[in-house]
């Protein structure tokens, strides 16, 4: 499966900077980040900050919701949508 550049960047960030203590190199774009409690509140804040800096966007607080952080694909979709505005 080929990843979009946005998905690739988010994947790399999560594996290296957020899940650094687990072996998640095989993490897929559709794997749930929430079902197994992989993302805690600190991790979400870090991910939001990363996306804002990496993609030059501002993610409104009311968009920081479970559905938009369900998977790498969902986060990428959020980034693209905010970037398109």
């Amino acid at each position, binding site marked *: 499966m080929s990843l979009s550049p946005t998905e690739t960047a988010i994947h790399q960030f999560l594996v*290296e*900077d957020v899940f*650094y*203590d687990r072996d998640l190199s095989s993490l897929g774009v559709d794997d749930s980040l*929430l*079902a*197994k*409690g992989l*993302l*805690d*509140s*600190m*991790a*979400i804040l870090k991910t939001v900050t990363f996306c804002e800096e990496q993609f030059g966007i501002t993610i409104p*607080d*009311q968009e*920081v*919701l*479970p559905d938009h*952080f369900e998977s790498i694909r969902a986060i990428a979709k959020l980034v693209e949508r905010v970037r398109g505005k």
Partner: protein
Amino acid sequence: MNVHRLLPRLVTLSAERHAGAPAIVMDGVTLDYGTLEQRSNRFARSLVAHGVRRGDRVALWLPKSPDAIVALYGIMKAGAAYVPVDPASPAVRLAYIAHDCEVAGLVTTRDRAASLDEAFAGRAPMRALWFADETDPRAELPRVAGLPGVPWAALSAEESRAFDSPALEDDLAYILYTSGSTGEPKGVMLSHRNCRVFTDWAAETFALTERDRVANQAPFHFDLSTFDLFSTAAVGAALHPVSPRIAAFPAAVAARWAQEQLSVWYCTPSSLVLMLTRGGLDKLDLSALRLLLFAGEVFPNKYLRQLMALAPHARFANLFGPTETNVCTWLEVKHAPDGDTPLSIGRACPYDEALVLDDALRPVPAGGVGELWVRGASVMHGYWGKPERSALALQTIDIAPGIRDRAYRTGDLARVLPDGNLEFLGRRDHQVKTRGYRVELGEVETRLAAHLGVDEAVVIAVPDEEITNRLKAVVVCRAGAEVTADELRQHCARTLPRYMVPETVEFRKELPRTSSGKVDRRALLASNTPKGAR
């Protein structure tokens, strides 16, 4: 035998009064009091059938769910103490705690079996373990340290009628592990009586009724959860635990609570501040909120004022106390203090006495600063398996001329204000709070120093407006060692809970020293200017 003052009696009595009333409402699922009572009776019988006896310990290591609550009541009914372990902690920490207090049983979920099996390395203290998410009674279950798991579905084979609990009110109800300065977590032992003096007092003082809908944000290994669980059950109100799926999203939690019209919230200031700054709390309908309690950290005045303005009709109270005493002082907050005047922690709750003493253990004169000691009915039994630590923390001292009693030395500095209220002035040691969690910097430093490439490590708490503190490690590497920040954070995360892993690591050639040769923590802190609010 059914001792009236046991925690699980609260559910039994509420089930007798109104079996059909909602006890737990979570993710669209409602468990009524009758069902909670029956399921916990079944689980108590399953525990006993697997050899769990009065005085044993049973660990909980699973995400928050109605079944986790069934489990903790069942454990207490069986006469054992529940030992809730952070579900986000690594399995090796669970294994350490399980061995430390020699648990007789463990309640967990299937997906955790593999990491548990590895962490126990063939040697586990339990006689049995239960998979709370296994709904097929005949499922083939993974083994942990050779032990077969009991599927939750098998509980339906147990009888649901009233369970005759062998426990007494001074038996341990739960053991909460907190960070330990020497590098190992320590288990705070609390009895049914210790807990109920607080939860019964709170239910009465804050006039909880069966019409209340009570939020539960605190995880069960955090003592704020005891109010949520047991003050709510005392009056037969409905508990609304936050779903793990939304717990990390302040906007989602705030929206859910407003939508479910929750009337009572008990949270850390960190989580309330995040709801204010990032959760859109100001746009929600908070008309159902009638009581807001907070504890665990100092509430920044600026945000407390904002919060009180959003819910002018609600009652606010600041609850204070370490895990060792649960809540021991409290303050009804009529209005947030002006300017930078710190919010007081109020006065002792009626079941405790708060003493501010000098180093010779004499009461400090009014206005003076001393250490806070607490005596009374909520004070813990001690630290599990640590008689020396317990003897230091719990000492028999003069309470008044000629009157001696056992008191807990909090390590907190306090001042008695002219109006009799107490002001909290910080710690005597290196214990800090981050997001409401209590962290001994020494525990993190010990872990860092255990890395082969580290010569010396200091962890400092950099003040933060939203979450009280952020942890930062300052590390000196051994000559020739190549160590990265990621590697050190990974090393910490293998044994420590996430909230104890330093967010940032700074490498230095040497650490600043005071004239006496100690590491100069003040200099390190001063060079890390606090971040402003967002």
